[in-house]
C-alpha cells in the first residue's frame, strides 16, 4: 500500500539523516569549549525547529477544521500533534543530555528549555483530551480549540520565560557560542541536520496522517452502512 510519494520521502529522509549523522559526528569539527558533547546541538536544534513547526501546524489545521468542517483537517491536526510531541520530547531529552556534562545538572531552567517544557505540557493536555474524549466531532472541535489556544500562548510563554530568566543571573547558565558557529563545516552540519529532520518530520507526519485518515474514513463508512441497513430494514 506504499505510495510512490511515501517511498520517495522515506528514502530522502533516510539519505539526509545519514548525511546529517555523518556531518554531526565526523564532518563538523569538535567544538573548543564544550567538547564532543556539543554535537548534540545538531540534533537538538533541528528537533526544536520541527517541534515548533508541528505545533504551528496543529493550530492552522485546527482553525481550518473549525472554519471549513472537513474531517481531513482534523486528521492532519491530530497527526501533527502526535508527531510534534515525539520531537518535543526529544528536544527535552537531548537538552538534558547536553546539560549534564556541561553544567553538571540534568536540568537547567534555561529559557528555551523551559519554554519547550511548557509547550510539552500544553500538548500533553491536548493528547489527553483526545485520548479521554474519543472520536466524536465534538471532541474534534474541542481539540482544535485547545490546539489554537496553545499556539496563541507560545509567543507569550517565550517572552515571559525569557524575562524571568534574565533576572536570575546567578542561576542562569548561558548557552555559549550557539550562534557563534565559526567553522563553515559546523554551519553546514546544522543546515543539513535541519533539512534531514524536516524531511523526517514530513515522512512521519505522512505515515501517521494516513493511518488516522483511514480510521476516520472507516468511521464514516460504518455510519453509512448503518444508515443503509436501516433503510433496507424499513422497506422489508
Amino acid at each position, binding site marked *: 500500500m506504499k505510495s510512490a510519494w511515501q517511498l520517495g520521502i522515506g528514502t530522502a529522509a533516510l539519505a539526509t539523516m545519514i548525511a546529517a549523522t555523518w556531518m554531526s559526528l565526523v564532518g563538523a569539527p569538535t567544538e573548543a569549549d564544550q567538547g564532543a558533547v556539543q554535537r548534540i546541538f545538531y540534533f537538538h536544534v533541528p528537533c526544536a525547529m520541527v517541534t515548533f513547526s508541528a505545533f504551528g501546524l496543529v493550530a492552522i489545521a485546527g482553525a481550518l477544521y473549525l472554519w471549513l468542517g472537513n474531517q481531513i483537517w482534523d486528521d492532519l491536526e491530530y497527526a501533527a500533534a502526535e508527531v510534534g510531541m515525539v520531537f518535543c520530547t526529544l528536544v527535552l531529552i537531548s537538552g538534558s543530555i547536553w546539560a549534564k556534562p556541561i553544567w553538571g545538572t540534568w536540568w537547567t531552567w534555561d529559557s528555551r528549555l523551559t519554554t519547550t517544557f511548557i509547550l510539552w505540557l500544553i500538548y500533553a493536555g491536548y493528547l489527553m483530551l483526545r485520548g479521554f474524549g474519543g472520536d466524536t466531532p465534538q471532541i474534534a472541535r474541542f481539540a482544535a480549540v485547545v490546539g489554537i489556544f496553545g499556539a496563541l500562548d507560545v509567543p507569550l510563554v517565550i517572552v515571559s520565560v525569557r524575562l524571568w530568566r534574565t533576572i536570575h543571573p546567578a542561576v542562569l547558565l548561558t548557552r555559549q557560542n550557539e550562534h557563534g558557529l565559526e567553522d563553515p563545516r559546523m554551519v553546514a552540519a546544522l543546515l543539513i541536520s535541519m533539512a534531514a529532520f524536516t524531511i523526517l518530520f514530513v515522512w512521519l507526519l505522512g505515515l501517521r496522517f494516513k493511518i488516522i485518515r483511514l480510521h476516520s474514513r472507516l468511521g464514516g463508512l460504518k*455510519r453509512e452502512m*448503518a*444508515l443503509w441497513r*436501516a433503510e433496507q430494514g424499513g422497506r422489508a
Partner: protein
Amino acid sequence: MSQPILEARGLAKLFGAAAVFSGVDLKVDPGEAVLVSGRNGVGKSTLIKTLCGLSASDSGESLIFGRNCRQHRGIERRVGVLTHQSMLYPNLTARENLEFYGELYSIPSPSTAASRWLERMDLAAASDKRVRSFSRGMEQRLAIARAMLPEPELILMDEPFAALDIDGVAIVADLIRDSIAHQRAILITAHAPLDLGAVQFTTYELARGRLLALSGPSPRERLRSLSAG
C-alpha cells in the same frame, strides 16, 4: 393550505453503529396536534431533539418555518421545546426562573407574564418557593410554562404528561386545546396514544427505528393530496 411549520424528510439518527430511527417523514401544520407514541427507550426523546435541531441528524433534514432546524437564529422565540430535563434552576424560585427566561426572550414585562403563567399552571401558591422543593409534577408544570412563555408557534414536548396527576393532566390538556385553537403547531411524545377529547391528534408510532402513521392521512398521502389539489 399554509406551509407546514415543521417538516421532516428522511430523517435518520445513529447511535454508534445502529440507527435509532431512519426514514422519518413527518409534518405538522398550524393548528395541528401530532402525537408520537412509543415504548420506553425507543428513541422518542432523540426524535424530538433531532426534529428541533438540538441534535444533528445523520441523514435527511428537519425544516422549521421552511429553514433547516439547526439554524436557530431569528426563530428562537417561535419554537418552544420541553425535554426530559426541566431546564430550571433548582435554587431559584418559580417566579425567578420564569422572569429570567422572560428577560432572555425579551418578553415585555416579564414579571406580569410570569405571574400569568404561574396562575395558569396552578403554581401561584408556590411562586416564591425554590424549585428544588417542588414535586416532580410541579417541576413539570413549571417546565412547560417555561417553554410556553414566549408564546411560540411551534411547541415540541417530550412526554409532557409524565409525572402529572389528574389535575395536572387537565391543565396541560387545556393548554394544548387552547394552543390548537390559536393555530399553533404541537408535537408531543407519549407512551401510548392519548384521548384528550376535543383535540384530534394525528398519531404516529415510533417502533423498530421507523415512524408509522396510526391515524389521519399519512404524510405521503397528505403531500400527494396537496400537490393534486
